[in-house]
């Protein structure tokens, strides 16, 4: 490199340095890193602290109140969420099992896979992968449940997913408020702590289920299938969504098999259900239930239903891209 060229290069380097340090882009990168750190802190706080609180959960202009208790003893977590209004459902997590009680249908589901995820807040371990499809930034500090909380914004980079906003307690790092935003940035689902108490310990009795179950209760049945046994091809799945599980549900008196495929991009999940078309007049229509969009279509002798907390175009794209692998595309 000649001296002349070098003399041009140094000022350019200084300019670039100034741009990198003081431009909005640099600020957003810094905000991105802080936001990610706060999210990971929140994930850790949810699993390590003993706390109890009352949560308001809002969707479709309706509000539900829930009681949440979380305890850790010798590194083992227990968690219990209880619906305070009808239908009085209860969810209990121990080291080995997750049990859901549905009193209105006298049914329960028991999952014996170890679950180390909070009932409220789940994030993948690696946020870099998530960062391909979402950007992270910091918002203002506000008071939630009389605590100072920093807003973290998770914004999708395309129109195939929903955005999120979280408010994370500056002191405890627990997430105190959550909003799910649709494609028009309207809040479609919201959860907020009305009260929160962080305690030394939660008595074990309070973490045990209160629902009494008798012999008339049914346990929901399903079978986990190896993912490579899937005979359906999924051509309309947006980038970033991966298959998380493949199960076969058994329903009805005749134990009818319904295939269930779960897809996720890390924080947004979409389910595909493939059921036999029974004696029914088929009415295909997109539906919306709170944050959940669903789309149903007919495929040969099957009814395919796709649903998840994603925009309508995402569930429709996934639904329309499903084909039986051995047959030509229809």
């Amino acid at each position: 490199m000649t001296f002349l060229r070098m003399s041009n290069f140094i000022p350019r380097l200084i300019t670039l340095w100034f741009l990198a340090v003081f431009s909005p882009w640099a600020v957003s990168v810094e905000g991105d890193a802080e936001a990610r750190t706060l999210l990971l802190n929140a994930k850790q706080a949810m699993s390590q602290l003993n706390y109890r609180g009352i949560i308001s959960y809002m969707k479709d202009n309706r509000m539900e109140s829930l009681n949440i208790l979380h305890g850790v003893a010798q590194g083992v977590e227990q968690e219990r969420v209880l619906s305070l209004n009808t239908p009085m459902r209860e969810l209990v997590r121990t080291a080995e099992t997750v049990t859901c009680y549905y009193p209105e249908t006298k049914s329960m589901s028991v999952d014996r896979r170890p679950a180390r995820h909070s009932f409220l807040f789940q994030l993948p371990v690696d946020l870099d992968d998530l960062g391909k499809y979402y950007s992270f930034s910091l918002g203002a500090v506000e008071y939630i449940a009389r605590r100072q909380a920093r807003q973290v914004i998770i914004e999708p980079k395309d129109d195939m997913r929903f955005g999120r906003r979280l408010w994370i307690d500056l002191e405890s790092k627990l997430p105190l408020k959550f909003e799910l935003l649709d494609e028009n940035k309207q809040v479609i689902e919201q959860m907020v702590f009305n009260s929160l108490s962080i305690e030394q310990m939660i008595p074990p009795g309070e973490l045990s289920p209160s629902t009494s179950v008798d012999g008339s209760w049914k346990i929901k049945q399903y079978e986990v299938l190896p993912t490579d046994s899937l005979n359906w091809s999924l051509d309309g799945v947006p980038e970033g969504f991966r298959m998380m599980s493949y199960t076969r549900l058994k329903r009805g008196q005749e134990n009818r098999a319904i295939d269930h495929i779960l897809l996720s991009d890390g924080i947004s999940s979409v389910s595909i259900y493939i059921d036999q078309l029974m004696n029914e007049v088929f009415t295909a229509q997109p539906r919306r239930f709170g944050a959940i969009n669903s789309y149903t279509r007919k495929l040969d002798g099957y009814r395919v239903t796709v649903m998840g907390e994603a925009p309508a175009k995402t569930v429709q794209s996934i639904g329309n891209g499903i084909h039986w692998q051995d047959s030509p595309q229809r």
Partner: protein
Amino acid sequence: MQDKDRELRMRISLLLDSELDGRDNPRLIDRLEEDESLKEAWARYNLVGDVMRGPGRYVASRDFAAKVSAAIAEEPTVLAPKTASHKSTARRRAANLALAASLAAVAVLVGRSLNDHAEALQTAATQRQSASELALNATEGLENQAEAQFNDYLTMHNETAYMAGSAGVMPYVRLAGIRAGR
């Protein structure tokens, strides 16, 4: 009624009773979706099933059809709009009336075999209401079935998303808050 139509209706009846060969179902369901008269037949056969399953509730007197027809004649004429996008009350009412009219015959048909041990329903007004209710019950029955399935799917979605560990925020809170019948 032509033989072809008769055979088609026979197959619908078999479909309803789960006696039709599974390979024929998709084609027949396609026809059902496209043909309004077949849809009506499907609704009527569903009602027959309901009536037969619930003898105590659905038995009618022999002059029931005539009374229902007279009651319907007193109703103002309702013109259903042609555009499918308008699900107005008027249209729904018109549809109910059409079902009620056809239901009268169904009730008498079934009533004949069950009527001997049953008390006649009291008044034409009550009967008209019962007929409409029956028609609605059939529709609502199907809707409830679809709703129950939707709820089941929704519940499984949230449960499985949680267990997979990648559900973001609130998978189980959403679950605790889902109301029955939604």
